[in-house]
């Protein structure tokens, strides 16, 4: 489903070159849940951004569902992100002036769904996540856990091929984190959702089928659960 070959990402600041990814070969199959772990600065988030087409690698190839992303235009990447990917960020990344319902409905509307249909779908998804009573609340009126749940609902409401999650529990307390990971597990079990998740927390990484460890821009180990 998603494959990288010799993926390299080097940051340049003036004359200084900082290699962050040093030739990553990686493959994830449809329906797989992969956790990426590693210490800070190991390159795991950078790797996630390259795979999710939020950033362009310095060299190497990314193939998603048989599409080589190197030849894609910015607009094609944008459409790919809209229709095939879902994103969950560490800091929720909800739009502050949109209600929970509007945040979830926005990508659906952008996909061309009529407002009524998008809202119906968004309400159903929020209710499934136990947020039916919060649909009219702005993000500032929700707790951190609730915001992250809205963020997950937004990410999966359009049934993406891959859900990318960048440290989804980093800003949450234990209880909220547990609830978020339950949602991920449910999604994976019930719908076969492909999930690629960066995390620092071993206990949640163990929920995934496979854990890959990053260090100094390379995959140093791989472990199947």
């Amino acid at each position, binding site marked *: 489903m998603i494959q990288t070959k010799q993926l390299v990402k080097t940051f340049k600041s003036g004359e200084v070159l900082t290699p962050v990814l040093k030739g990553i070969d990686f493959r994830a199959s449809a329906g797989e849940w992969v956790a990426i772990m590693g210490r800070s600065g190991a390159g795991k988030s950078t790797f996630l*951004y390259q795979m999710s087409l*939020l*950033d362009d690698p310095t060299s190497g190839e990314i193939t998603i569902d048989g599409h080589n992303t190197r030849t894609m235009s910015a*607009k094609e990447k*944008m*459409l*790919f*992100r*809209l*229709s095939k*990917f879902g*994103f969950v*960020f560490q800091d929720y*990344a909800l*739009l*502050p*002036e*949109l209600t929970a319902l*509007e945040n979830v409905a*926005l*990508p659906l*509307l*952008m996909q*061309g769904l009529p407002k009524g249909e998008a809202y119906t779908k968004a309400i159903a998804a929020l209710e499934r996540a136990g947020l039916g009573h919060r649909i009219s609340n*702005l993000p500032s009126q929700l707790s951190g856990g609730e915001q992250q749940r809205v963020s997950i609902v*937004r990410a999966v409401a359009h049934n993406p091929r891959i859900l990318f999650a960048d440290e989804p529990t980093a800003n949450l307390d234990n209880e909220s984190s547990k609830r978020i990971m339950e949602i991920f597990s449910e999604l994976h079990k019930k719908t076969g959702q492909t999930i690629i998740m960066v995390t620092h927390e071993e206990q949640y990484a163990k929920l995934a089928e496979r854990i890959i460890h990053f260090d100094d821009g390379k995959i140093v180990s791989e472990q199947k659960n």
Partner: protein
Amino acid sequence: MFSALNIRIGFFLALRALRRASLWTTSLIVFVMILTFLNLVVVSGILVGLIQGSIDQVRTKYTSDVIVSTLNDKKYIENSAGIIELIETMPEVESVTPRYREGGTLEANYKTRKDTDKPNTAPGQLVGVDPLAENAVTGIAADIIEGSFLSTGDYDKVVLGHYLLKQYVPIETPAFSTLDHVGIGTKIRLHVGDVTREVTVKGILKSKVDEIALRTFMVDTQFRSMIGRTDGNVSEIAIKLKSGTDPAAVRDALKRSGVDKVAKVQTFEDAQPKFLQDIVATFNMLGNVFSSLGLIVASITIFIVIFINAITRRKYIGILKGIGIHGRVIEISYVFQSIFYALIGSVVGLALVYGFLVPFFAAHPIDFPFSDGILVAPPDQTFFRVGLLVFATLIAGYIPAWMIIRKNTLDSILGRN
């Protein structure tokens, strides 16, 4: 790029951004827009209104809607009686005032001065009118500031324009002399050709039309005998038309009747001096210059507001792009927000201009020395300026949004420069 979907989502985002924006910020931006709109419309409106007030004064106090006057090489209008009769039969005509007019001199101190003293004289136009007819056309009686206007039976009485009196025009130049120590009841002499007549000042009128302020009015029957005009031919006929009548139509009808063979037939616009039309054009141009400056200030204001807004929301713009919202949608949302500010500012400005300022200045004109200044705001020009304001703010809103949106998506999300 500007697909219906992009516009729809752009509007969706703009509406929510506005609805949930800080009330103070929105109010401040709208306030700037209102001031800009007023600057666009009112500054040039007052400048043009200053001259328009003068034009209106000439129309209401002197020429009325249509004026028939002597040909350049004639002292009077031949067959005046027939022409007046023709005019009075026209259904569009409300009232008519024929005027006799001769150039003459007024003399004030002839009783008290010694032989060596300089006579206190002032040149002026002496005009004979039917007081009732003149008042019906120009409402002249309302302009009397001392004494009263003429009555039909007045004998040897005159009403003086205030420019003839030193107390109202304290400046005296060799080319412009005035009468000193003359008030109501003072006896003065009129000299017309070889004829001299002693008359009493019955009233003093104040007018912002120089032509009127320099005139001396007398009852027509007496004036006619004084200048020896036995044929009843007058020098000018001012015609007031019924409301809604086109003066040009009446002028053309009179010309078709052959009146133009013995007299000049002009609408109030035709009779305007060319310099007035030139000043209107000049003030319009000046108003446009001031308005353009206002427009630039408004554009910069909107640019800064949208730029700061987009900079502070850069992370969210990055997230929007990250989750697949097209950059064009985000640009459109900012354009909609700018248009909203401009439209709200314009709507409030329009309400202020047409609901308050125009009626207020019509009821309380600005007292300029030579005119009663009003606010001129023709709807077609005003709406053109609304369009201009909306267009300028649209561009001013689009550019900063475009600048921020073209930045790298991930850099925006992570707040990297």
